[in-house]
C-alpha cells in the first residue's frame, strides 16, 4: 500500500538516512548474516562434499520422514482449518470466542511442552503406556509420535488464516447460492472456495514450513534413532553435536531453501491476493 506522504508529515533527509541505515543494519546483521553463514559453511569445502552430505543415507531417511510427517499433518490441519472457519465465520453461536481462543492454544505452548504432553499420554509411564505395550504398539520414540507432535504445533495455522478472511466476506454470496437451490457442498466448492483460495494456500504454506522445520516438540518424542525417527532438523542437531559441521550446515541449507521458497511463495500470494483484494 503506497500513500503519498504530505510534506508536513515527512522526516528530514538526515533522520530518514539514519533510520534507514539502522533498519538495513539490523536486517543485515540479524537476518542476512545467518543465511550467508549457512551457505558459506555448507559450500565452503566444495560442491562434492556438499552433495555427499545430502546423499548420505541417514540424511535421506530424515528427509523422507520430514516429508511424511508434513504430508499427514498439513492435510489434516487443512481439513480442520476449513471446517473450523466454516462454522465460526458463517454462523453465529454461543461460545464462539472461547472456541477461537482454544484454537490458538498450541501457539502459546512451548514446543518442548507440546512434545511432553504426548509423552505423558503415550509414553511408557503415560496414561495409555501400559495398554500400548500390552498391544505391542509404539507411539513415542516412533513415527506416530512425530506425526502427532507435528500436528499439534501446526494445528492453528490454516484456521487462523481462513477465519478472518471468511468473516470479512460475510454470508451474502453463500445465502444467494443456497436460495437459488445449491446444496451445501455446491455452495462451498463453487462460491466459498474460489473466494478463499489465496488465504487457503497462504495458510497451507506457513503450516508446511512449520511442519517441516519443527524441532523442539519433535525432539522430545523422537528418541533420535538414526534412519528411523530422525527428521531433518533433528539430523542437523546430531551432526552438529558430533562436530560434523560441514554436513550439519549442508543439511541445514536444505531447510533454509525451504524457508526461502516459503517466503517467495508468500510474497507471490500476497501480491496476487492484493490484486483480488482478498487476504
Amino acid at each position, binding site marked *: 500500500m503506497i500513500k503519498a*506522504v504530505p510534506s*508536513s*508529515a515527512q*522526516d528530514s533527509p538526515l533522520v530518514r538516512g539514519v*533510520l534507514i541505515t539502522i533498519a*538495513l543494519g*539490523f*536486517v543485515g546483521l*540479524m*537476518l542476512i*548474516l545467518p*543465511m550467508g*553463514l*549457512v551457505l558459506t559453511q555448507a559450500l565452503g569445502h566444495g560442491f562434492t562434499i556438499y552433495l555427499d552430505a545430502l546423499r548420505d543415507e541417514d540424511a535421506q531417511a530424515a528427509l523422507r520422514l520430514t516429508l511424511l510427517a508434513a504430508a499427514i499433518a498439513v492435510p*489434516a490441519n487443512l481439513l*480442520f482449518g476449513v471446517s*473450523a472457519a466454516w*462454522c*465460526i465465520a*458463517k*454462523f*453465529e*453461536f454461543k461460545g464462539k470466542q472461547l*472456541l477461537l*481462543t482454544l484454537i490458538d*492454544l*498450541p501457539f*502459546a*505452548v*512451548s*514446543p*518442548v*511442552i507440546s512434545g*511432553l504432553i504426548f509423552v*505423558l499420554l503415550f509414553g511408557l509411564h503415560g496414561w495409555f503406556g501400559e495398554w500400548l505395550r500390552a498391544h505391542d504398539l509404539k507411539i513415542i520414540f516412533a513415527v506416530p509420535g512425530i506425526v502427532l507432535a507435528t500436528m499439534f504445533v501446526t*494445528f492453528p495455522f490454516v484456521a487462523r488464516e481462513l477465519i478472518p478472511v471468511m468473516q470479512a466476506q460475510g*454470508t451474502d454470496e453463500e*445465502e444467494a447460492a443456497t436460495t437459488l437451490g445449491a446444496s451445501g457442498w455446491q*455452495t462451498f466448492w463453487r462460491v466459498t472456495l474460489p473466494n478463499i483460495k489465496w488465504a487457503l494456500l497462504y495458510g497451507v504454506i*506457513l503450516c508446511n*514450513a512449520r511442519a*517441516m*522445520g519443527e*524441532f523442539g516438540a519433535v*525432539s*522430545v518424542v523422537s528418541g533420535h534413532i538414526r534412519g528411523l525417527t530422525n527428521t531433518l*532438523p*533433528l539430523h*542437523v*542437531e546430531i551432526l*552438529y553435536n558430533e562436530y560434523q*559441521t560441514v554436513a*550439519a*550446515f549442508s543439511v*541445514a541449507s536444505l*531447510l*533454509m531453501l525451504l*524457508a526461502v521458497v516459503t*517466503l517467495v511463495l*508468500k510474497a507471490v500470494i500476497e501480491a496476487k491476493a492484493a490484486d483480488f483484494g482478498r487476504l
Partner: protein
Amino acid sequence: MRASQLETPALSRHYFRRVAWRGHFRRESVLSGFGLTLGFTVFYLSLIVLIPISATFLKAAEGGLASFWAAISAPRVIAAYRVTFGCALVAALINTVFGVLLAWVLVRYRFPGRRLCDALIDLPFALPTAVAGIALAAIYAPKGWVGQYAAEWGVKIAFTPMGITIALIFIGIPFVVRTVQPVLESMDFACEEAATTLGANRWQSFRLVVLPALIPAVLTGFALAFARGIGEYGSVIFVAGNMPMVSEIVPLLIITKLEQYDYAGATAIAVAMLGISFAMLLTINLLQAWTRRAESQR
C-alpha cells in the same frame, strides 16, 4: 394431501420447539453444514489439543501439591526461570525498539531494497529454529564472524545469557513489526498535519500524536515476542552454553528431567509454564481487543 394437512400442526409445533432451542444456542441461518463442521472442529480440537493438555494437568495433580511445589521451586529451576524470563524480557524490549523502527521505515520511506527487507522480516517464521540456532552459534562463537571482534574486547557472546538474548531477538522481531506495520499503514496523516500546523516539530508530533495511537499495537507485539521467547527452544540451545544455574533455560531443563526419567519433575515445571503461557495468551487477547477498539475509533 389430506394426510399432510392433518400432520401440519404437530409438525410445526415440533419444528418451532426445535427452532426455539437452537435459537438459544445459535442464530438461524439458511446455510447448511453447521452441525457437521462444528462437530468435526470440536472433535479434532479435543483429540489433538484439549485432551493431551488436560492429561498433563491431571498428571501433575497426581503427585500432590507439596511435591509439585518442591519441583517448581528448586534452586536450579528458579535459576532457569530467571534466565528464561530475563533474556526473553530484554530481547522483547530490544525488539520493541527495532520493531517499531523497522515498521516505520518500511511504511513511511521508499528506498532500494525495501520490498526485500519487508519479505525478509518473516524469515524467523519460516526458517527452522535449529538452523537459526547453529548459524547464530557459529557467528557469535569466539572465533565466529562477529564473536571474534567481541572476543578482542574480552566479551563472550555465544554460550552466555547474551547468546540466548540474541537468539530470542532473532525469533521475536517479526512479531513486533507485523503487529505495528498494519496500524501504521492505516493511519492517516490528518493529525500529524494538524500538529505541524499548530507548531509541533517532527519529534513532538511523533511522540505526542503517532506514538499514542501505536501503543496498543506496540504492547501486543511486545507481548507476542515475549511469549514466544519464554517457550523457545531450538534456536536457543545451540548458542546458550546450557550451564545449570547460569545459562540453562526452562524448556531445556524439562528435557533434562525427562532424560533422567524424572517425569513428575518435568510435568510440574511444564504445568507451571503452561499456566504462565495461558495468562500471556489471555493478556494478548485483551491487548488485541484493545488494538481493534483503538483502530475503529480512529
